[in-house]
């Protein structure tokens, strides 16, 4: 029962999710692009035409730097949360390391994320921003976000087995977070005493780092990256511990 081939298993589970989602959709990639583009257009319209106070140049790039990391977070977290329940056939009847179920679900969402990051890069370049050396930090920043979502999903998917309303809590939390992550307002608008609190939210940290790198052409502050690193790693470790503890009784509750 010892698994040595996590890689092959993970790959196949991710492929499964991806194939199921895109098999009957010839416009698959298009759907990944449509949502952020529409959100970008709507938010840009509202905050440059309706509320005209914004002084942020290239608002559409600014807002897309927020939408792309947030979209991935929201979608991946919800699907990660319900993943164990959705795959109850696997969890109850197939001998496998159960952690792999929420993790593969989150990773399957990364394919969307990559497409949306490509869109973000295209929009950044078309707005006239250049490539700079700090772009090398982007894979790490986005990677830490994935780590964070994996950790969070391990916790919420395990709880969702016991309490099926955890998924609604997650959906509500996403709605609240949309406002608490600086997506359509600049970080400088946040009162000073909340600054450090904001930076402990990994999604806010990713958004801020994105803007630093892509729009301002400078390195994100080291404290921001440290916080992102520590909070994300903390959630991954906590997620593995909580899941490991709760998984023993999964078969009785599913």
């Amino acid at each position, binding site marked *: *029962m010892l*698994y*040595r*081939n996590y*890689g*092959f*298993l993970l*790959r*196949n*589970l991710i*492929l*499964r999710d991806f*194939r*199921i989602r895109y*098999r*009957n959709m010839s416009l698959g990639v298009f759907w990944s692009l449509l949502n952020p583009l529409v959100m970008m257009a709507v938010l840009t319209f509202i905050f440059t035409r309706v509320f005209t106070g914004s002084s942020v140049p290239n608002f559409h790039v600014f807002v897309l730097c927020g939408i792309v990391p947030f979209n991935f977070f929201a979608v991946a977290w919800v699907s990660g949360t319900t993943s164990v329940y959705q795959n109850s*056939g*696997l969890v*109850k*009847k*197939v*001998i*496998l390391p159960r952690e792999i179920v929420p993790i593969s679900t989150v990773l399957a969402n990364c394919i969307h994320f990559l497409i949306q990051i490509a869109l973000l890069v295209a929009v950044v370049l078309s707005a006239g921003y250049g490539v700079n050396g700090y772009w090398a930090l982007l894979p790490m920043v986005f990677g830490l976000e994935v780590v964070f979502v994996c950790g969070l999903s391990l916790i919420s998917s395990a709880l969702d087995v*016991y*309490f*099926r*309303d*955890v998924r609604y809590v997650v959906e509500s939390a996403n709605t609240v977070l949309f406002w608490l992550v600086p997506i359509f307002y600049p970080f400088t608008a946040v009162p000073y005493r909340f600054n450090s609190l904001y930076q402990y939210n990994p999604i806010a940290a990713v958004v801020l780092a994105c803007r630093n790198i892509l729009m301002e052409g400078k390195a994100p502050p080291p404290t921001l990256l440290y916080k992102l690193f520590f909070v994300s790693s903390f959630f991954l470790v906590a997620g593995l511990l909580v899941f490991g503890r709760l998984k*023993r*009784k999964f*078969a*009785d*509750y599913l």
Partner: protein
Amino acid sequence: MSLVRLNAVSKIYSRKMDRKFLRSYLWSRVHPARHERFYALKQVTLGLHEGDSLAVVGPNGAGKSTLLSLIAGLSSPDEGQIQVNGRVAALLELGSGFHADLTGAENVLLNAALLGFSRRRAREKFDQIVDFSGIGEFINEPLRTYSTGMVMRLAFSVATAVDPDILLIDEVLAVGDSDFQAKCVRKIQELKQAGRVLICTSHVLGTLRDLCTRALWLDRGQVLREGPLAELLAEYQSSASGAG
């Protein structure tokens, strides 16, 4: 060396597990009610050695599937100890781990991965699995176009390709046609001769006669009898027809 050892194992289900939502959980905290508990399995002791083959019989709800899922390590016992030494492959439910929208070939690879194959080993075994299943050209069609029997053929072919030390089969073989059943029986005999352990449940006693030498009779979670298959099945059959 015994490959599977159960020592006074019990599995208890309690009504407490019904609290599927936070509200009912909180409610149960405020108004603690007495929870009905019942034994899905009670004090089961069992030891299986290399080459052993055990048939588990009993009416619906006797605890047969619970026993297999405990041995597979999919759920944990509330009392007693379970020791399993070796690689377990389980066919507990038809098509768990299969997805209707994927093709037969994709499902074979997915299940090979689920059973712990490396990529190289999955590639090596792929032709053998497809060949054994007898699915033929349909292997590249989506699984939803398959009949139940075809799904079972594929599932059995993958599970036995793992070359498990312990093979658990729950009520799955019955859906195959007689040709394929004969093929399964031959395959299982090979595994037994190689010293593997087989545990299977079925309501089709004929299949059990072909596969197993020992039997365990469960009723409402308790072991009624254990012993050589032929005697026990005769007794089981007469009791079943006597009880109606």
